[in-house]
Every structure is written in structure tokens, then in C-alpha cells.
């Protein structure tokens, strides 16, 4: 069976025969038509072996015609766009499509790994846990690589994804999930009432099952009815139709997520178009009209290519105009056999037999069989024969002797499962229906309803009527009232069923979960080994996992386990379905958030200048701060940083500190609030002065530090570290709104209003004098250390000036409205040139703060107390503040706690490393002897050697002691001397100069 579209029917199908599309599968060229899926095009070309199974590498074909497909998984496209595990049954054909089969070597027809079938005893349920347990050393080197090569799915692309993805929010009154007959009626009913409606469907065409059946609505072809409904919906402004869109998750409060395959039907997305788009849909009412999924019957070799769901057989005939075989056996436990026989016959496909598992078939079935001259057998198909596909079936009638029939297609149905997954994502359990032999939706989340086949209403008229009712009710619930709409005329076809799951006494392995190669024997083994809960059996055997999530196999598995454990199906229960309903690419979840745009960046005032002058930027939270500014001839970062430090210590430097958090705290109770937020005393802070402050968490550990400036009697202006700004603001609001709501205070962030620069060095005042307008006295007497005030600069620009020093030098911080920031930055550098000024970055700032023993992020690390970092004396004894009581717990005031010290190498040329652990000189370097660790290190250009800060047990008492700084990661072991954590100007004379 091959040749150019040799299995294409002469007429029929919803394909465009005028548009031929070329494609390749495993390197061979074929053609199909617009409207085909890859699966239908392969079948049209007589290709029915499309993949090898996961564990045993068994030949597999196309089981279904939808997203439930467990077998026909292919690698689609190539290069950076190669996507593994794509279901051939949902991949729309496009011109130039390239697909490869998976999990076979060297070729599909000759797969040497199929010897795994001979090893089947090894690959039984739980094989991971049993076979490869020991010796342990073999796991990483031998077992895992071996298993990964032998058992697996497709290959992911090796290159970065070249496509773009996006995320969109959408709101509606009524969300309708599924555009089949019930969904179309629901959408129509809700839309006519004026409600805002979103209708999603995973296919590229609306209609659902109607596309695959020969149904009549309103006395005409159902396709004509679909077109009329679509036209009406398209014309309504309150309706949004999303095709090629799978609703894959329902979350709380009416939030649902859907994936739209915007450009997957094209060879490559046009440059302006995202490949896929995630919709976050917030709906007041959700109607699930997601249809139903057919189940196969479990019998011997039931996974051979040519065994196909009966509904899929009808899809290929009716929707795609393809004959999925030449001679068929129909095998069913329900009335699905009727339509299948009828459609096969009308497509001219020979029907060898209709095998009905029921003891006797309803009269209309025997009449239909007689009408088409089809042999009706009440019995079962026990086995399929044929190596790479169905060649014959063995049939065991309920009465009479078994016999064999030649055929190449087995159309199989054990009934339909309503697609209840979306109704259970919020934890609800489906309910078993004996009448339907299926799980139907149980208790539904608030605001959700179900209609059509998803509710178990398989027959057409009932489904249409149910959809209309659901749409009307949902719209009314959102406040849109209108008369109920009429249900169009249609027939209710027969849908009777007698539960039947599993043929006993087969010769060959009978598969339950095709994708995971789980056979009936695996379930039996799991049960014998004590796994009796369906959730345990799922995990032990892996049934119901992977891309298809057991949509075709899981109810059969439950039924088989129920029989083994002598329980009913409802007693056995069902495994929880979790999002996503179908696989979603990680790139779609990431959307815009990848690479450089992974997260937003914040740019300070000096950003453009820094970029233009080849300055190096560093991330601090979301901010990009200048780290250092290399100059021509400097060999490395250390040389640049050392030059910047030396410039500040000898002349003057300018540093962008705009990123510090700045918060206005104002009101009659501003002081009262700040007194409770900061551990140190603030009551004595005068207007026009600033003070360093530390903030504790309620558990007594340090939270943040910064300065508090008093601008006015009731107006304070506090700064936070760059990284903690948002956290501190939130904490302050918490204290104000929740802890002490009686306080009359207003808090407002001012971080972004002010561009702020530190001007530090012995010549800082000279530089500032060039900038600050002459009317303002900034002499040491008028504007001493820790003074703060509003002035003007550059001819009247609002300016807030602080005399603060992180570097230990004579220093100021100057704040101007942010729009003047870039210009002031350049102006300062220009004015500073004659003074020998330079720009310095966060690296030089870091060196200088270590030289001064000021704490920063590495010391403010969430595990330190104020006392640990030498600030214990700041803690006020006179007031209540956050962290006071728990900060006095014995463990937090233990004098043995590691506390801040300075460190310098005994051999001055040696380098110190942050992260090195302190060990007493004579002790062994073990965890038990750990005395603390180095938090920060820097090369001090002022001293000419490396220095460090660290947290050392009994640190303050150990000054002068020689200890070891051991860095096992780098293999370093350095003798260091414990010194006071201030290396420069211990008396603080420079900053008051």
C-alpha cells in the first residue's frame, strides 16, 4: 500500500484538493492536501508504521485522530525548530513540512532496539527500581546512559529556540471550551444575550466531532450549519473565537490558561509573529464542552499499526477523505460500530466482520450489518497477527470455534470517556456512570458547567440542546438575560454500550498504555507486588504518564486493576488529572521573559554615560549599576578599581548612588513609627541632621541599614540598601497599616524622583562649591558631617544635599530631580577634571567600605544580628522596636557567636578569598573546628595588600591572633591575622574634615 496518495478517497473530506502540499517523513517525499494533518497525509500515502514504542521499540501506527494520540509522535521540523514528541494527529500539514520518526535505529522498519522486546522481562513494571539498583557506582556511568539511549522519546533541538512567544490576558463573561456541537450552541446562546464570550477549540476548524461524522442538522449537512453559526459569531463584537487553541488548565477564581498555536501551521513564523501565545483567560462562567475521547479494547497485539479507534477511522474517511485501510474488522462493545460500518461501506472499504462484544446486538445493528452484507459476530478479537502491521485477526465468537480473518485495519471502540480533565483541575473528582461505562464530571467548581459529550451526552440532538441550555444559564448568571434559543433539528443516534475492557486468553501481549508500553501483565505484576491504589499503580508502572496522560488507556487500566482487586471501578477510583491537558512548550510559559529580557532592568542616571564610556555594569537586584570605569592602558578590573579608590582617597571621586531606596516618612507620628522600625535611638535626631540606622526583623536578625534624615519636624527621609528597597517599603507599610494603625503617618517612595551622586575625597568640598549655588554655605562649620538640607545647584535646580560618607572620606551625597541626573553627572566630571576627579563604581565603593569596616550585603545576609557586625551598642534600651524581644534570645546574644573582625594576610602578598572558613592555627580543618568565615575581601590600594572582613567566634577578643583561612573549594589555606575591622583612619578624622 503505497504510491502517491494511493489511499486518498476519490471524493469527500474537508480538505482542499486544489492545494497540494509537499512534505517529507524520514527523508521520503510525499504530498497531501491543505486541511490534512500529518497523520491523515501519511495514511493517504499508505504510511502506517510511524514510530517505535518507548520501552520495547514495538512498531506503532496511528491510533487516533486527535490530541489524545499515544503512538504517532514525531520530530517535527529541524535545526533550532526541531520539536520532539509532536503528535502527527494534530500537526497541520504545511508545504515543506519535515518530520522524522523517533526512538528507532537505524530505521523504522529495522529497529535493532526492538531486541528490547526480548528483554521484556527486564522492562516490567517498576524496572527502574529493581534492575538497576546495584552496584550504585554503575548507575551514573552505565545504567542511566544505557536506559536513556534505549528507552526514550524524541530529541530536543540543541540550538536556542529561534522563535518568540507571548502571553496575553483576556476577560470574558462566558468561556466556552470546545467548539463542537454543544460548544457552538453554548457560545451562540451566551453571545446572543450580549455577554462577552470566548470560544476556544484546539483544532483549526470549529465543529468538533461534527467534522468527522456524517450528521445532519436542520435538515442539511452539519458543515453548513457550522458555517452559519461561525458567521453569526464572527459578526458579534462581544465574541472572540480562538481556534488552534487548547485550553490546558483551570485555576481558581475562573482563571484558565490556553495555548494558541499562532504559527505552528506555517513552516516558520513570519518575523513579526509569535510562534505560540499563552492566553490567561479570566471568566465569570466556564462551560466545558470539550467532547469525549474514545477508548480502545485491550487484546493481543492491540498496538500493531492498523489498529485504530473507530471514531478515528470515521475521521479519516469523513474529514480527510482517506481510507485508513482496505479491509477492516470493526470491534466494539457499543453502538459506535454502527456508524463505523456505515462510513466504511460508503467509502468503499471492505468490511470483513463487525465483532460486537455483547451477547446479542441490538436489532438496528444486525439490520445494518445485513444491509451492508457485513458478517456480524458476537464475540471478541483475541489477537492481531502481523509483524509491522495488522495482517489478520483471530476472532473468538461467544458461540462456536475461533477463526482467523485477513484484514489490515481494526476499528476498535470500548466506548467514550467524557473529557472531564478541566473539571477536575481544582481537585474535584469525576463520578462513575454505569450507564455510560465512563467517568462523567462530578461536583464542579463554582461558575463551571458542562454540556455535550463532555457531560456524557453523546447523541447529537441532546448535545446541541444541552449546549444551548448551558450557554443561556451561564449568560444569565453573569447578568445577561435573553429568551432561550431554539435547538436546531437533529437526530439522536443510538449510543448504547455494555462495558467490556479486556479480552482474556490472548496469545500476545495486550497493551493498556501504548505510550509507556504498559501491558496487562504489568498491572497484574504491580498488583501482586502490593500496589493496589490506582495512584501507586500509575507511578509503579508509569501508566497514564507522558505526553498523552493516558487519555486513551487509563480507564481500561482502572477497570483491569478493579477486576484484579475485586473492587468496582468507582471504588478503584481515578488518578488526578493535573494541568496541562496537553503538552505546552516551556518557551510559551516564558514568553517575553528570556535572554536579555528575562526580567526588566532598571537604569540609573549614569547609565547612558557609562555605556558610552565603556564602563562595566553590574546587576544589583533589577538595577544595572556602574561597577567600574576602565581606562586605556589598564590591564584588568583590579587596576581600574585600585585607581578609582586611590583617586577618592587622594583627590575626589563621583559615584552614582541613585539606586539606593529613598522613602519619605511624614506626619505627626513619623518619629513614633521610625522609632519602632529602627533599633537605634532616633528621638534625639535634630532637624537638618542625618543618622545611620539599623532595622531588625521581628526575629531579631538584621534586616537592612541606611540613613534617616530629618528634613522637618514631621518629615523624615530614609534610605535603604539598593537590594532591599522594596522589602523595606513593604515592611514599613506593614508596621503602619497592621501593627500600629493608630499612627498618623504617610509613607511615599522617592527612589525614582532623585538622581543621587556621592562626591567623596579630600577635595569633595572644592568640587561641590563649583556646583552648589553661591547663596548656600557648605563650609564645614555651616554644613558639618551628617548635615542635610535643601539647597539649589547649577542656577536654581532643586537639590538635596547630605553630608554622608560610606568611603570614610570627606563626602557628600547630592540629589537632584532625576531628569537632571545625566547632565549633572557629566557636569560633575567636567568640573572635577582640574581637581583630578574620576568616576568610581560599586567595586571601588566596596573596597572602601571594607577598608572602613562598614557592613554591606555579605554581612547583612539574614543570619547576623546587630551585635554580630559590631553594632550591638546602637540598640536602644529605652524603647520597643521590631526585633527587640526576640533579638535578646540566648542564642542571639551568645558571646561565642561569630562576630565581625578585620583580617589581613600574614604573608602580605597573599590573596584573601570571601567564603574561606576560619580554623584555629593548630586545629584540623574540619567542620567541627569551623570558627566562622570570611564575608568580604578586597585588595586595598591604600595599604598595598589584601584585607578582609569576617565573622569569627569570639572575634572581638581574638585581635592579634593568627588563624587560618581555609578555602577547600580553591584549595587555599592562608594564615591571617585578626585585627580591628577598620583599616583606614580609625578615628574618623577624614570624614569630618
Amino acid at each position, binding site marked *: 500500500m503505497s504510491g502517491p496518495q494511493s489511499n486518498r478517497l476519490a471524493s469527500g473530506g474537508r480538505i482542499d484538493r486544489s492545494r497540494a502540499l509537499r512534505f517529507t517523513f524520514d527523508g521520503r517525499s510525499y504530498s497531501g492536501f491543505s486541511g490534512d494533518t500529518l497523520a491523515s497525509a501519511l495514511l493517504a500515502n499508505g504510511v502506517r508504521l510511524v514510530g517505535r514504542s518507548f520501552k520495547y521499540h514495538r512498531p506503532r501506527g496511528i491510533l487516533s485522530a486527535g490530541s489524545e494520540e499515544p503512538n504517532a509522535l514525531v520530530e517535527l521540523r529541524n535545526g533550532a525548530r526541531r520539536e520532539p514528541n509532536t503528535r502527527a494527529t494534530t500537526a497541520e500539514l504545511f508545504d515543506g513540512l519535515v518530520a522524522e520518526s523517533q526512538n528507532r535505529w537505524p530505521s523504522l522498519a529495522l529497529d535493532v532496539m526492538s531486541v528490547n522486546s526480548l528483554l521484556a522481562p527486564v522492562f516490567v513494571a517498576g524496572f527502574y527500581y529493581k534492575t538497576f539498583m546495584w552496584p550504585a557506582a554503575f548507575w551514573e556511568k552505565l545504567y542511566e546512559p544505557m536506559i536513556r539511549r534505549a528507552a526514550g522519546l524524541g530529541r530536543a533541538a540543541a540550538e536556542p529556540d529561534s522563535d518568540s512567544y507571548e502571553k496575553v490576558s483576556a476577560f470574558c463573561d462566558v468561556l466556552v471550551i470546545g467548539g463542537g456541537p454543544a460548544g457552538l450552541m453554548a457560545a451562540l446562546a451566551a453571545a446572543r444575550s450580549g455577554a462577552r464570550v470566548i470560544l476556544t477549540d484546539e483544532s483549526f476548524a470549529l465543529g468538533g466531532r461534527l467534522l468527522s461524522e456524517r450528521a445532519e442538522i436542520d435538515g442539511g449537512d452539519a458543515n453548513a450549519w457550522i458555517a452559519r453559526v461561525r458567521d453569526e459569531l464572527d459578526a458579534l463584537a462581544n465574541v472572540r473565537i480562538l481556534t488552534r487553541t487548547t485550553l490546558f488548565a483551570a485555576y481558581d*477564581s*475562573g*482563571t484558565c490558561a490556553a495555548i494558541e498555536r499562532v504559527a505552528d501551521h506555517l513552516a516558520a513564523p513570519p518575523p513579526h509573529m509569535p510562534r505560540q501565545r499563552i492566553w490567561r483567560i479570566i471568566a465569570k462562567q466556564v462551560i466545558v464542552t470539550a467532547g469525549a475521547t474514545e477508548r480502545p479494547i485491550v487484546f493481543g497485539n492491540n498496538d500493531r499499526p492498523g489498529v485504530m479507534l473507530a471514531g478515528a477511522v470515521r475521521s479519516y474517511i469523513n474529514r480527510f477523505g482517506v481510507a485508513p485501510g482496505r479491509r477492516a474488522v470493526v470491534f466494539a462493545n457499543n453502538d459506535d460500530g454502527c456508524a463505523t460500518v456505515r462510513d466504511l461501506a460508503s467509502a468503499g472499504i471492505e468490511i470483513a466482520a463487525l465483532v460486537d462484544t455483547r451477547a446479542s446486538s441490538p436489532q438496528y445493528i444486525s439490520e445494518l450489518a445485513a444491509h451492508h452484507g457485513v458478517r456480524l459476530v458476537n464475540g471478541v478479537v483475541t489477537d492481531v497477527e502481523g509483524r509491522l502491521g495488522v495482517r489478520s485477526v483471530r476472532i473468538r465468537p461467544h458461540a462456536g470455534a475461533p477463526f482467523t480473518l485477513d484484514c489490515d485495519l481494526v476499528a476498535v471502540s470500548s466506548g467514550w470517556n467524557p473529557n472531564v480533565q478541566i473539571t477536575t483541575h481544582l481537585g474535584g473528582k469525576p463520578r462513575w456512570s454505569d450507564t455510560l461505562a465512563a467517568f462523567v464530571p462530578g461536583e464542579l467548581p463554582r461558575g463551571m458547567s458542562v454540556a455535550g459529550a463532555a457531560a456524557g451526552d453523546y447523541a447529537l440532538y441532546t448535545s446541541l440542546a444541552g449546549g444551548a441550555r448551558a450557554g443561556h444559564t451561564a449568560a444569565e448568571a453573569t447578568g445577561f438575560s435573553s429568551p432561550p434559543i431554539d435547538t436546531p433539528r437533529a437526530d439522536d443516534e443510538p449510543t448504547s454500550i455494555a462495558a467490556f475492557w479486556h479480552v482474556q486468553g490472548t496469545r500476545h501481549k495486550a497493551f493498556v498504555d501504548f505510550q509507556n508500553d504498559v501491558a496487562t501483565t504489568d498491572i497484574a505484576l504491580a498488583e501482586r507486588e502490593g500496589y493496589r491504589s490506582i495512584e501507586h499503580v500509575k507511578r509503579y508502572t508509569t501508566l497514564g504518564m507522558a505526553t498523552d496522560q493516558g487519555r486513551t488507556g487509563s480507564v481500561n487500566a482502572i477497570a483491569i486493576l478493579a477486576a484484579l482487586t475485586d473492587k468496582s471501578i468507582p471504588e478503584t477510583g481515578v488518578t488526578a488529572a493535573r494541568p496541562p491537558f496537553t503538552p505546552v512548550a516551556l518557551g510559551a510559559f516564558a514568553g517575553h521573559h528570556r535572554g536579555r529580557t528575562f526580567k526588566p532592568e532598571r537604569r540609573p542616571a549614569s547609565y547612558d554615560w557609562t555605556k558610552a564610556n565603556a564602563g562595566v555594569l553590574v546587576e544589583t537586584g533589577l538595577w544595572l549599576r556602574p561597577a567600574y570605569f576602565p581606562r586605556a592602558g589598564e590591564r584588568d578590573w583590579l587596576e581600574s578599581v585600585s585607581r578609582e579608590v586611590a583617586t577618592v582617597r587622594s583627590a575626589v571621586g563621583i559615584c552614582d548612588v541613585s539606586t539606593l531606596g529613598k522613602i519619605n516618612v511624614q506626619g505627626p507620628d513619623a518619629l513614633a513609627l521610625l522609632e519602632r522600625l529602627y533599633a537605634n535611638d532616633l528621638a534625639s535626631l535634630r532637624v537638618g541632621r542625618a543618622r545611620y540606622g539599623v532595622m531588625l526583623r521581628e526575629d531579631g536578625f538584621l534586616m537592612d541599614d541606611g540613613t534617616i534624615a530629618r528634613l522637618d519636624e514631621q518629615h523624615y527621609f530614609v534610605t535603604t540598601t539598593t537590594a532591599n528597597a522594596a522589602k523595606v517599603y513593604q515592611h514599613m507599610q506593614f508596621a503602619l*497599616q497592621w501593627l500600629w*494603625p493608630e499612627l498618623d503617618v504617610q509613607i511615599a517612595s522617592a527612589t525614582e524622583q532623585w538622581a543621587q551622586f556621592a562626591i567623596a575625597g579630600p577635595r569633595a568640598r572644592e568640587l561641590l562649591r563649583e556646583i552648589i549655588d553661591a547663596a548656600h554655605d557648605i563650609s564645614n562649620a555651616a554644613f558639618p558631617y551628617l548635615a542635610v538640607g535643601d539647597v539649589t545647584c547649577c542656577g536654581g535646580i532643586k537639590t538635596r544635599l547630605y553630608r554622608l560618607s560610606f568611603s570614610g572620606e570627606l563626602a557628600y551625597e547630592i540629589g537632584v530631580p532625576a531628569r537632571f541626573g545625566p547632565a549633572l553627572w557629566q557636569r560633575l566630571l567636567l568640573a572635577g577634571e582640574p581637581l583630578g576627579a574620576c568616576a568610581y563604581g560599586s567595586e571601588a565603593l566596596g573596597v572602601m567600605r571594607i577598608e572602613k569596616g562598614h557592613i554591606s550585603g555579605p554581612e547583612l545576609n539574614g543570619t547576623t544580628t546587630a551585635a554580630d557586625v559590631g553594632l550591638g551598642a546602637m540598640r536602644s534600651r529605652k524603647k520597643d522596636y521590631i526585633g527587640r524581644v526576640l533579638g535578646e534570645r540566648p542564642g542571639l546574644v551568645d558571646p561565642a557567636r561569630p562576630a565581625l573582625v578585620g583580617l589581613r594576610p600574614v604573608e602580605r602578598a597573599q590573596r584573601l578569598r570571601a567564603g574561606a572558613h576560619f580554623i584555629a592555627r593548630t586545629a584540623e580543618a574540619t567542620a567541627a573546628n569551623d570558627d566562622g568565615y570570611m564575608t568580604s575581601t578586597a585588595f586595598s590600594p591604600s595599604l598595598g595588600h589584601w584585607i578582609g572582613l569576617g565573622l569569627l567566634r569570639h572575634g572581638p577578643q581574638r585581635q592579634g591572633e593568627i588563624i587560618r583561612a581555609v578555602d577547600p573549594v580553591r584549595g587555599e589555606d592562608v594564615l591571617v591575622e585578626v585585627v580591628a575591622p577598620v583599616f583606614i583612619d580609625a578615628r574618623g578624622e577624614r570624614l569630618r574634615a
Partner: protein
Amino acid sequence: MRIACPHCGDRGLDEFVFLGDARVTRPMADAAEPADAFHAYGYLRMNPAGPTDELWFHAAGCHAWLVVTRDTRTHVIASVRLARDVALELRAVASTTEDASA
């Protein structure tokens, strides 16, 4: 999950930051056994299966702290109140009780 901010209306979870139990009250600094009282405040939680009162911050919205009454079994939110209003009510109740016992 969505939370109906009393100021901003119905908003998605991603606008909010969760803090924790709203049924614990910060002890007064002059509590009888402050260490015990603060230990309980800092560390002891009920973790009920059912309705809880939780503190959430509308971080990407109006910056109001909220007390959200949520059923931990279903995520159904029964009420959302401004933390400040709840705190002031609790103050009023506490002072009434104090007056009564005085």
C-alpha cells in the same frame, strides 16, 4: 487565584505578596513574659484545614495590606478587608475588654 482588593477590585494572584497568619497579634512590649509571648507570635501557627485569615500585600497595586479570609481546602475567599480596618477593630475590641476587666 484572584483576590478582590477593596480599593482596586478583582486582581490576579501575581499582584499580591503573601505574608502569613493574620490571627496572631504582636504582643505589647510590656507583656508579662515577653520572650514567650514573642516566641508564640513569631513561630506558633495553627495551620487549619478550613477558613483562615491571612495577610496579603497588594504589592503590584495600591500597596494596601489586606486580611484575606480563605478556605485552605478550596481556596474560596470569603472576604477581603483592609488590614488597617481590621487592626483598628481589634484595638477597639481589646480596649473594651480591658475596660470591662478593669
